């Protein structure tokens, strides 16, 4: 309800202005707009277009990364269809992302609400909640292992005490991806910070007005906080999608060889990395990278299209 009331799609018109002036205005706006984004355009051309073009070109070649590439047409793409490992890593990665993204949004929101509690020692809480996001990933992984060790880990002991099975997180092929989702929540502080900045930006008078109307905390959250946070939730969804699809480091740190056991935790980017730097198959890796890129772009487009029905820009 609140969403409909304030939703204004950003693409819509500037309001009523005479036609002729608008087109001149438009031209002027185009120049100004392009000037503002020109740093990005330069950087984009210099640091992305060329390497990306290379990737496209190499995806049609057999190339070991050192010697000259050899043109093989669509062979790499044909290989993919019969490459069992490709389908497996694609499944693993989508499975992980599909879990990690929604869980991540909820975790970040919860954490941001904690960070927004108006208590005196709040700065300390905020710092602590944010801490795991900045400690080096191997230190974090080491602690995580200790906590979730099936023999003496606190988490596993607790699980056994309340009657749950003693899960062998990284040894049982069924649980590794879930363990990675849990591990990722230690880093929710990053996203929570953005959520917090968003919460701080919600005008207080909206809450005051709601209080006068007799709304409770839950209703305020549902009718004010959530709609006002939608642009940031959208941001976090896209960020989460990109980070989720490109999960890499944790896998290298926690499994050996990366993706163990039996490739149940092998993720797409780890597969690509191994192809480039272990197997000298840069051509095939390029093709895989492009496919991953296309899949993610499609997913992102779906999220954006869907977001039109719930994202709410502009306050009041």
């Amino acid at each position, binding site marked *: 309800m609140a969403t409909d009331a304030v939703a204004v799609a950003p693409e819509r018109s500037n309001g009523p202005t005479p036609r002729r002036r608008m087109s001149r205005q438009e031209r002027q706006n185009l120049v100004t707009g392009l000037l503002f984004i020109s740093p990005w355009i330069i950087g984009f051309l210099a640091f992305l277009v060329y390497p990306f073009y290379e990737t496209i070109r190499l995806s049609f070649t057999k190339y070991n990364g050192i010697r000259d590439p050899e043109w093989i047409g669509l062979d790499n793409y044909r290989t993919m269809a019969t490459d069992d490992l490709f389908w497996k890593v694609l499944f693993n990665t989508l499975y992980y992302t599909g879990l990690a993204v929604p869980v991540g949004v909820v975790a970040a929101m919860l954490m941001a609400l*904690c960070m927004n509690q108006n208590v005196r020692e709040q700065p300390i809480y905020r710092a602590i909640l944010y801490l795991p996001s900045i400690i080096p990933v191997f230190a974090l992984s080491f602690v995580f292992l200790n906590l979730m060790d099936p023999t003496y880990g606190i988490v596993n002991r607790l699980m056994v005490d309340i009657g749950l099975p003693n899960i062998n997180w990284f040894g049982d092929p069924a649980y590794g991806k879930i363990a990675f989702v849990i591990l990722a929540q230690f880093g929710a502080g990053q996203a929570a910070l953005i959520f917090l*900045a968003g919460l*701080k930006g919600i005008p207080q008078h909206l809450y005051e007005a709601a209080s006068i109307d007799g709304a409770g905390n839950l209703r305020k959250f549902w009718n004010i906080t959530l709609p006002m946070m939608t642009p940031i939730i959208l941001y976090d969804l896209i960020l989460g999608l990109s980070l989720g699809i490109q999960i890499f480091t944790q896998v290298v740190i926690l499994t050996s060889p990366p993706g163990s056991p039996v490739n149940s935790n092998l993720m797409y980017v780890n597969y690509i990395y191994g192809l480039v730097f272990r197997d000298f198959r840069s051509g095939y890796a390029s093709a895989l990278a492009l496919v991953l890129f296309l899949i*993610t772009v499609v997913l992102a487009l779906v999220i954006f299209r869907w977001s039109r029905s719930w994202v709410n820009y502009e306050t009041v």
Partner: protein
Amino acid sequence: MAKSLPLDTVQQPARNETARKANWRRFARKQIVPRLFLIPFVAFFLLPFYWMVAVAFKPIPELSIVPPTFFPSEWRWANFADATRVFPFWQYFQNTLVITFLTVLGAAISNPIIAYGFSRIEWPGRDKIFALVLATVFVPYPVLIVSLYDIYSRLDWVNTILPLVVPLFFGNAFWIFLMRQFFMRIPRELGEAARLDGASEIRILFQIILPQSYAAISVVCLFAALHAWNDFLGPYLYLQKEDSYTLAIGLTFFRSASQYDVQYNLLMAASALVVLPVVVLFLAFQRFFIEGVQVGSFK
């Protein structure tokens, strides 16, 4: 955001029983209930950091106790001094600081300007190009490594900090997106009025929009600083002289190449030292962005 002052309320002589009860309820609701949730939640998130510090203090024999001890039997401060001798800590610290400073500078200048162009000015094709910006975050990086290295090598940038710093002056898709999301929440009328008065877009950005966006800018700066401070792959590929290495590279020196041994307590001690400046930075930034929002919300 006025701080609630429970002591004042309590000190006032209670006129009657109901008022006191109401006061008490208010006190419980504002002061106790939130902490009941906060403290256990926060304690859980403190674990990794605590663990890192605890291991950092342990003497070597204690590392071999199973299950690991929660409190070190002896707080061995010398581990920290020892850790800084495994690699030239202060030299790498300085190198990292320079890279971080330039990175933050680049991010703070470029992202708000670019984001402004994507949010506060209407121009044909804007949203299509913005989609392109977003698409770039989905390019998997391992395949770009070799091509990018080629470019930097042609430019003769290898062995300098330029590949690590220069790209940041051209915006980062995530941070552009983040700034844009914040700019779009600012009421349209704020810019319109100034525009009708003939203010240039750049003036609107600096005098009207930016003062509303301290929170977002400080978040971007913090993220940029973190990115530079912790980046491993960039320095690993492009800095080939030992005296130009960064802390992230130094941290790997605790592991022997044959991987049969790791000086774990020293590794954790060094990690704690590396994290320390970031924690300080965070505490400083935190005040900054909360005050920033408060200034904005008065208007």
